[in-house]
């Protein structure tokens, strides 16, 4: 009897012997790359061609953050390649690229009942799971932590193979060869990568591969930087001439265009639509599901027009509304039962009544990616093909396949880059929808959500309210105890139930509404040496599904904590910078950031209505180890016509080792702009299950003319490279709130800051 591995797995799993089956799962996922003619794959990471082009496969989603330059750069630097020869392609979904640090971090989401078995990247269960599921998700700033080591090893192995091939031609020892600029040298002889590409591919690299003594790093230095970028982004030439393809730019023979309407938020069901009205020129099909309806036409515009004419009717119970959100959160905050998710020292035990308590609130915020959810699907001969941008490709692929009755093995996902994401592309409803529509109409289909649908069916950042309490020292007013009591949905658990449990938004909400969500409080202890800290979560179902957003927990925790710290300083008339410095004895590097930011931003203490505010934050914990990003920001802001006017943001940043300085700067700048947008806008309000705003214009997003002047000082740092993308998002809103307090005397405790009025 022939027994396939898959049959064994299924059988074993049914019998409860999952680990037995895992033991038989392949350990080596080989090389999932398909080399073209005159091209040879050296490993899962790279191919080298006869013409000397080195193509790097990147298993992370390019969404603007530059990962499709940074990982190839790591390889080029380790391998000694010439940057002008480096090309990049997205890696296919494969077990060859497990994101172990992220799998460890998210173990409570994919293995909720036994997360302890897999909370460390070194654990076998975790590696097996990540390989088996092809878990390559792009999130939580883990790209370098997950992929710099295997990228370097792949490059070092390829370098050794090239040296071996050259050495054999010269009849010398390969260890005596050197590689630089895409050439292998021995003394004054050399061969090019192009000349060696074919031969070298056949060599067996040494195990372990001979890594360079240190990983590549760029150190801030005005002189070398003025000479130009050493590693300019690979994606820019195509992005500047319109040829860089996004999912909505795919064109297939016979392809039709689909537009969609989702029912109001709640438990929603399509009742019907005006069939007579759907006589729009170019309309080909109407596809109905329980919670959405799609029109398929010759152009997207015709499909969208047909949907408007059809005016679908829904039956919805439990409609989301801002009033309901506010009531649920208020009730939870004041009366709900809290779970303690983080404690330091004695927490709040034996402290008695706090000296001071303030209440902070954050409204639901939308990502407002300029690219709306887009996916192209083709279903033919029992195979599903998907073109889309996704931060979690294996799960998107599996969910879409399942929706049309196929196994994940019968689906192919072609990873496309995203037109912005900010964690929006951790969701993949549109993949399921595109697959279902393609299946029903029997033709390739491109589904693009309208802007309005992004507002209706996107997954905004969760709303929250927080009572921040402090017990303060009598002599100087500094906090000896801090407690945050936060009422918010169990937003991370809800996201996990959607991504890993393949649940609908409604089912995910119902599955998680009463359990606390420790992952939503990452870094809640903050950077300060406060002896006693208690972080309490009151989980609350607000009737609105929520999701991940750039900055995540650090973004809302920094706003609450850094606003509150400012208030504690103001209570006793202390200067906000020195008030913070006095509590940073345990983190001299963050103290250094504060001092440098103060200098850069000409910090004046914020006195005399100068409109200067200060804030700092860090992501990562030096006591635990791993990468730590630190930032301090001096903001200058005023209350101006039509709202908040942010004039300047000056930041000093310590990211540890930096691989690409200019991309790090881009990310810091972009993070600050994104954080500014969360401070001044991005909020959605809801009525009867629908957002009250349908347009980007209603979100008060910054344009070039509103953009603050931004000054960034990168501090040369040591240690593992930290992600530059999220830390700016975290620091900007509290710095701006503190600046407005200086400018106006008003303490704005609600995000967006405008919503309180000035």
């Amino acid at each position: 009897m022939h027994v396939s591995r898959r049959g064994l797995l299924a059988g074993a799993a049914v019998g409860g012997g999952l680990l037995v089956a895992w033991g038989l799962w392949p350990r080596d996922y080989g090389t999932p790359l398909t080399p073209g003619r005159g091209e040879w794959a050296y490993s899962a990471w790279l191919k080298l061609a006869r013409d000397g082009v080195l193509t790097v496969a990147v298993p992370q989603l390019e969404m603007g953050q530059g990962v499709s330059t940074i990982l190839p750069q790591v390889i080029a630097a380790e391998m000694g390649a010439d940057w002008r020869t480096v090309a990049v392609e997205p890696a296919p979904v494969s077990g060859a690229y497990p994101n172990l640090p992220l799998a460890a971090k998210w173990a409570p989401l994919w293995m909720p009942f036994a997360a302890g078995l897999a909370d460390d990247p070194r654990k076998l269960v975790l590696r097996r799971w990540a390989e088996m599921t092809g878990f390559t998700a792009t999130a939580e700033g883990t790209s370098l932590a997950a992929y710099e080591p295997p990228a370097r090893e792949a490059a070092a192995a390829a370098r050794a193979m090239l040296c071996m091939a050259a050495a054999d031609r010269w009849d010398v020892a390969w260890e005596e060869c050197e590689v630089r600029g895409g050439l292998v040298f021995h003394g004054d002889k050399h061969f090019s990568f192009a000349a060696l590409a074919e031969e070298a591919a056949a060599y067996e690299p040494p195990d372990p591969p001979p890594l360079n003594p240190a990983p590549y790093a760029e150190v801030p230095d005005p002189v070398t930087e003025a000479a130009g970028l050493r590693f300019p982004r690979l994606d820019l030439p195509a992005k500047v001439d319109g040829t860089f393809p996004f999912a909505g730019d795919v064109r297939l023979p016979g392809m039709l265009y689909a537009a969609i309407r989702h029912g109001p938020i709640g438990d929603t069901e399509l009742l019907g639509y005006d069939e007579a009205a759907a006589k729009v020129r170019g309309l080909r099909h109407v596809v109905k599901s329980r919670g959405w309806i799609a029109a398929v036409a010759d152009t997207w515009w015709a499909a969208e027009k047909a949907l408007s004419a059809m005016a679908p009717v829904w039956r919805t119970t439990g409609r989301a509304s801002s009033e309901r959100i506010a009531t649920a959160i208020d009730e939870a905050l004041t009366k709900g039962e809290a779970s303690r998710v983080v404690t330091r020292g004695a927490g709040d035990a034996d402290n008695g009544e706090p000296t001071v308590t303030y209440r902070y609130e954050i409204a639901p915020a939308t990502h407002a990616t300029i690219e709306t959810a887009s996916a192209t699907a083709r279903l033919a001969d029992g195979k599903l093909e998907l073109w889309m941008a996704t931060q979690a490709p294996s799960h998107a692929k599996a969910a879409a396949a399942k929706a049309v009755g196929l196994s994940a093995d019968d689906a192919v996902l072609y990873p496309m880059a995203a037109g912005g994401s900010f964690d929006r592309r951790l969701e993949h409803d549109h993949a399921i929808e595109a697959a279902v529509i393609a299946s029903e109409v029997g033709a390739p289909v491109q589904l693009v959500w309208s802007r309005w649908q992004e507002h209706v069916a996107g997954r905004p950042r969760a709303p929250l309210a927080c009572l921040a309490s402090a017990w303060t020292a009598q002599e100087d007013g500094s906090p000896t105890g801090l407690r945050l009591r936060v009422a918010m949905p169990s937003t991370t658990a809800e996201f996990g139930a959607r991504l890993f449990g393949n649940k609908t938004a409604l089912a995910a909400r119902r599955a998680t509404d009463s359990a606390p969500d420790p992952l939503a409080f990452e870094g809640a202890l903050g950077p300060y040496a406060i002896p006693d800290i208690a972080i309490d979560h009151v989980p609350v179902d607000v009737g609105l599904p929520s999701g991940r957003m750039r900055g995540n927990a650090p973004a809302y925790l920094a706003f609450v904590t850094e606003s509150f710290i400012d208030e504690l300083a103001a209570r006793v008339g202390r200067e906000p910078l020195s008030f913070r410095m006095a509590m940073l004895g345990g983190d001299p590097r963050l103290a250094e950031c504060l001092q440098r930011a103060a200098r850069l931003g000409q910090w004046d203490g914020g006195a005399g209505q100068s409109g200067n505010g200060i804030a700092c934050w860090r992501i990562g914990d030096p006591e635990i180890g791993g990468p730590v990003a630190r930032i301090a920001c001096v903001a200058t802001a005023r209350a101006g016509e039509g709202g908040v006017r942010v004039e300047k943001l000056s930041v000093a940043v310590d990211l540890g080792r930096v691989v690409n300085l200019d991309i790090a700067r881009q990310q810091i700048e972009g993070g600050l702009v994104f954080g500014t947008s969360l401070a001044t806008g991005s909020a959605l309000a809801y009525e009867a299950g629908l957002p009250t705003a349908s347009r980007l214009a209603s979100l008060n997003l910054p344009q070039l003319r509103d953009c603050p002047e931004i000054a960034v000082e990168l501090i040369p740092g040591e240690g593992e490279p930290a992600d530059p993308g999220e830390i700016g998002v975290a620091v900007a809103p509290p710095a701006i709130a503190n600046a407005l307090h200086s400018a106006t005397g008003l303490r704005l405790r609600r995000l967006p800051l405008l919503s309180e009025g000035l």
Partner: protein
Amino acid sequence: MTALTVNGRPLRFDIDPETPLLHALREAANLTGTKYGCGTGDCHACTVIVDGEALRSCLITIAEAEGRYVTTIEGLSRDRSHPVQQAFVAEQAIQCGFCTPGIVLAAAALLSENANPSAAEIRAALPNLCRCGVYPRLVRAVERAARVARREETISAAPAPGISAEDAARAVPAMDRGD
């Protein structure tokens, strides 16, 4: 059939004349460099140049564009050599790239009218939304493009497409097979 000139070529569209130019370009002409972001004129990702003026292609129908000259990002230059394209790459004033075509065309239209725009004029001419946050680099990039256009500076940041392997091998030793 609605006739207009796109990137120097006469085109006739056999679709509803009320179709916004954006969707005619993307879905009928397959000129996908012009992006849909909102359909209501808020994001400016669909900006194209119509008779020399930067316009949002989601707000004009092909009937309204009949007989006019439209330039999309595909037609701005044949080889990425437009000063704005070169300057945007040189300054890395691009992240995800989705809003880039609209911004580049808006900047190109500005420079064709005003060879030496002030920072305030640049800010006023670029109302495009960029969520990645390239704003801090835009004024610098457009000023640099203006200097290039005025021939005060040259940049070669974005290589022309379609370089032959032989030409590449002459410039890059790693690509020279030595045979």
